Each structure stands twice: as structure tokens, then as C-alpha cells.
């Protein structure tokens, strides 16, 4: 009886979350529909610029900005995160490992707006001395790295701990060095978990809004160097939504759709990746 009840409760929970997800997608489509009907799809990629009040709707610079910032942050955070996890699990003395782990957990708990604020008053002026105007792709990448580093570290840590003890013992018994054990046995065995963490982190990087909005300068352009300001899709919505009306509002929903498409593409990629691994 309890089992049946639990099954129903879980079923309702699952259906509700799936429904909410579909409702959001439906709502996004509904809100962007009027704009999509008036503006042909190609204009989002061929218009001269993004000036919605002057009927120019090019989304490409923001797509490139989103991708540059996320990929840049991943390139920095993946090696750092995995190295941190390995340090905690295999190299650090127990006390230090615990302290370090708590520190990373703390980093994971800091609200994004605090990162943004810190970036705005510390990081941006620093970069400004190096190369004005300071608010730049580089600042965005650094802030995002800080934000996704704990995600990658903690998931990699959990994945490494989940590898059965026998694997390690067996490898050690074969006379492999510590690095040999890690590289040859532990990392491959924990691969699925680590990749899942990276995908999670990538999702966060793509969708992060407040922190990025505060440090990247938000100029709509294709960046040609790390010091150029950029605008991400998420920042675009947050910046302009409050005062947008009519078509302007509609195209902001279109950029929301594009963002969602990007994340869907990412999770699709993750699914095929893990399937390949299992096969």
C-alpha cells in the first residue's frame, strides 16, 4: 500500500516537472510567435546590428559572445577542477584535503551576483589598467571559471570516490605508480561522472546572467581579442527585458529560445557521449 502511494507521489512529481518544462517551452514559443511572424528567421543572422528599436535584430554577435565566454571558462575550469579533485582524493594529507574540500564547497555556495559585484569592483579595474575598458570577454571568462570550478571539482571528486576500491587495489598490486593508477584506471573508470559534471558546468556557464552582465561590458559585437567587451544571450534578456515592448519584447523571447536550443544541444551531446562510452 505504502509502495503504491509512493509510486503515485513520485509519478505525479515527475509528470509535474516534465509538464512545467514543456509549459515553459510552450510559453517561450507563444511569446516569440508574433515577432517570428513579422521578422523572417534569416534576419536574426543577417541584420547589420542589434538595435531592436531601430528594427535591426542580429543575434549572432551574442551567440558568439555566449560561446566564447563559456568555452573559455571551460578550458580553464576543466583542468583546474579535475586537478583539484585528484589533489583532494589522492595527494593531499587528510586534514588539508578536508579543508580544501570545504573551501570548494563554499565557493559553490556563493551567489552569482556576489561574484559579479566582486568582478565589477576588483577584476574589471585591474584589467582596465592592463588594457581599457576592462569590462571584457576576459573578465567574463575569469568570473565564469570561478563559478563553474566547484561544480567540476565536486562532481569529479564524487565520481572518483565512487570507483570501487578493488580497482585501485588491483592496480596498485600490479605495481603501477600513483600517477599510473590515476591515469590508467581511476580517471577512465570515473569518466562518465566527470563528463556529466562538465556538461552541468557548461550549462551553468551558458545560462549565467547577473555575474556576466556586470563584467563583460555588454557591447553587441564579435570579439576580436580577449579585451573586447561582449554581450551574452542571457545578459541581453536581463538587460533589456524590463523596458521592452512589442516587437522588442518578442525578439528577446526569441533570444531566450535560442539559449534554450543551445542548452538542449548540449544535453543531447552529453547523451550521445555517454552512450558511446557504454557501448
Amino acid at each position, binding site marked *: *500500500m*505504502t509502495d503504491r*502511494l509512493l509510486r503515485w*507521489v513520485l509519478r505525479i512529481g515527475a509528470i509535474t516537472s516534465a509538464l512545467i518544462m514543456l509549459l515553459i517551452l510552450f510559453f517561450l514559443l507563444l511569446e516569440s510567435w508574433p515577432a517570428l511572424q513579422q521578422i523572417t528567421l534569416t534576419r536574426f543572422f543577417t541584420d547589420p*546590428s542589434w*538595435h*531592436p*528599436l*531601430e528594427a*535591426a535584430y542580429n543575434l549572432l554577435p551574442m551567440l558568439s559572445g555566449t560561446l566564447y565566454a563559456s568555452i573559455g571558462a571551460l578550458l580553464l575550469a576543466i583542468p583546474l577542477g579535475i586537478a583539484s579533485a585528484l589533489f583532494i582524493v589522492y595527494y593531499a594529507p587528510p586534514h588539508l584535503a578536508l579543508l580544501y574540500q570545504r573551501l570548494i564547497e563554499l565557493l559553490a555556495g556563493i551567489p552569482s551576483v556576489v561574484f559579479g559585484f566582486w568582478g*565589477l*569592483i576588483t577584476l*574589471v*579595474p585591474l584589467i*582596465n589598467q592592463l588594457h*581599457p*575598458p*576592462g*569590462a571584457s570577454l576576459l573578465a567574463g571568462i575569469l568570473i565564469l571559471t570561478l563559478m563553474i570550478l566547484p561544480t567540476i571539482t565536486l562532481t569529479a571528486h564524487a565520481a572518483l570516490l565512487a570507483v570501487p576500491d578493488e580497482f585501485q587495489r588491483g592496480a596498485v598490486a600490479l605495481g603501477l605508480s600513483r600517477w599510473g593508477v590515476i591515469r590508467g584506471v581511476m580517471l577512465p573508470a570515473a569518466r562518465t561522472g566527470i563528463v556529466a559534471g562538465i556538461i552541468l558546468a557548461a550549462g551553468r556557464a551558458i545560462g549565467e546572467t547577473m555575474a556576466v*552582465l*556586470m563584467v563583460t*561590458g*555588454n*557591447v*553587441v559585437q564579435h570579439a576580436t581579442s580577449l579585451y573586447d*567587451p561582449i*554581450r551574452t544571450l542571457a545578459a541581453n534578456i*536581463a*538587460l*533589456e527585458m*524590463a*523596458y*521592452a*515592448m512589442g516587437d*522588442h519584447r518578442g525578439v528577446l523571447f526569441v533570444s531566450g529560445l535560442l539559449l534554450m536550443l543551445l542548452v538542449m544541444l548540449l544535453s543531447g551531446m552529453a547523451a550521445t557521449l555517454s552512450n558511446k562510452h557504454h557501448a
Partner: protein
Amino acid sequence: MFSSKRSAFWIAILVLIGFACLVPGVAAAQKLVLTGSSTIAPLVGEFARRFESLNQGVRVDVQTGGSSRGMNDTRNKIANIGMVSRAMKANESDLHAFTIALDGVGIILHINNPVTSLSKQQVIDIYSGKITNWQAVGGKNARITVVNKAEGRSTLELFLAYFGMKNSAIKPHIIIGDNQQGIKTIAGNVNAIGYVSIGAAEHAAGYRVPIKLIALDGHEASVANVRNGSFPLSRPLNLITASIPQGLTKDFITFSRSQQVHDLIEAQYFVPVSDD
């Protein structure tokens, strides 16, 4: 054997949720509809909340859509009151306008920037990228960082209208959202130039944020000058009605122009009109 108790619990929860959804649907006795400017709407929304708490059974519905929508809706009697964030034109004398606050936009620089005043033409040249070094306007030899507002913001609208520019003609290095972000950006960059609500800038400067408001064409940018109308980059925030206000409409307009809402006006960095 616990299951019947548990299902009773879940049913109770569901019933509670159901009630919670129903309660706000109960109709209010009196309703007031306001539409118009997105600059005024957040402010009037705050007024409305306080007005509702002071008057039982009254509901005030505030919708945005721009000043022109406010004007149309008021004329067509769709809205009781319209919100218009500019001075009334001569051909709009059929409407009754009541100014609730003033909005001024001032140019701000970092406090260590030696420039103290800019002319209208200099501001246009800086924002359109013709002047890129502070030396050209009497400052240090350093590149100017141009800070612009995001599309759709009312301060941007006022700025563009005053300087007669199109947003696509501006060559910005940083684009910001609200006033606070602008102030922090300028405070962190000695060579930046930006524009924000004068009230917000004065407030921040009062808290030792390293920024300063500079004079525009010789007019000092201050809340006092916005209030007495001598600062050029400012505008009135108006409530308008199609006929002489009566009843609830009159009550709300009187309320909006009274001392009771001055704290709300100042909290959003606008300038209250009545000085008493």
C-alpha cells in the same frame, strides 16, 4: 496501516493549494486602471500598493506599454489614468495632466577626472566616437571609455532625444542596465563617461562613491536645478486623465502628489514636485 493517514495528509495539502489559488480571484469592490510609460509604471506600482493598503477593497491595476499607449487608452476610456513621461504638447490640451515627479539625467565622471564641464557638442562627439581622448576636451591624455545604457531604458531615450542622436550612432565600450551599475562602472574606471539619473548620482556621491556630476552647457546638474527647471536634460512624469478627475481617480491623483509618497519617489531617484 499508515497509508490512509498519509493519503489524508496529501489530500489536505492539495485542498490547501486549491484554496490558495482561489483566494486572489475574489473580486475587489472598486478598480482603477492605469496604463502608459514604463518609466513611471514601477513608481506608480509602488504608489498603488500603498494606496490599496490604505483603502480597503480598492484594486489598482498598473500596466506598461509606453507613453503613447497611456495617451490613447486615456482618450479611449480604456484606462482611468494614463502615465506619460514627457511634457504635454500643445495639441494635447484636451487631456488633464498632473505632474507627480521630475526625472533628470546627468553626465557622470570619475572624481579624479579633471574635466568639470562639457558642451552639448562635446558630448555628442564623445558618444559618436569623434573624440576618443580626454585631451581633446581639456583632460589627461587617456582613452575615453564610453558607457551607454541598454536599449529601451528611459534614460537612454531622454539622452538620445536631447542630443538628437540615434542609438546606432553611438560607439559604446560598455553597456549597462540600471543606474547603480552605471555608477559602479564609472567609480571603477577613471577614464569612463556615463549618464544616470541625477537623483541616483547625488545619492551615491553623498555616500563617498568616487564619482561626480558635471555641468552640461554650463548648467550644473543637481536635484535642485531639476526641480526649478533650469537643467535642460530633464522631463516631467505626468498622470493624465480625459476629464476633470472625480471620485477614486481624484483620490489616487491627490495621493500621488502628496507627502505620503515622497519616500517612494526618492527611493527610485526621481524628484518630488511639491516642496512642502
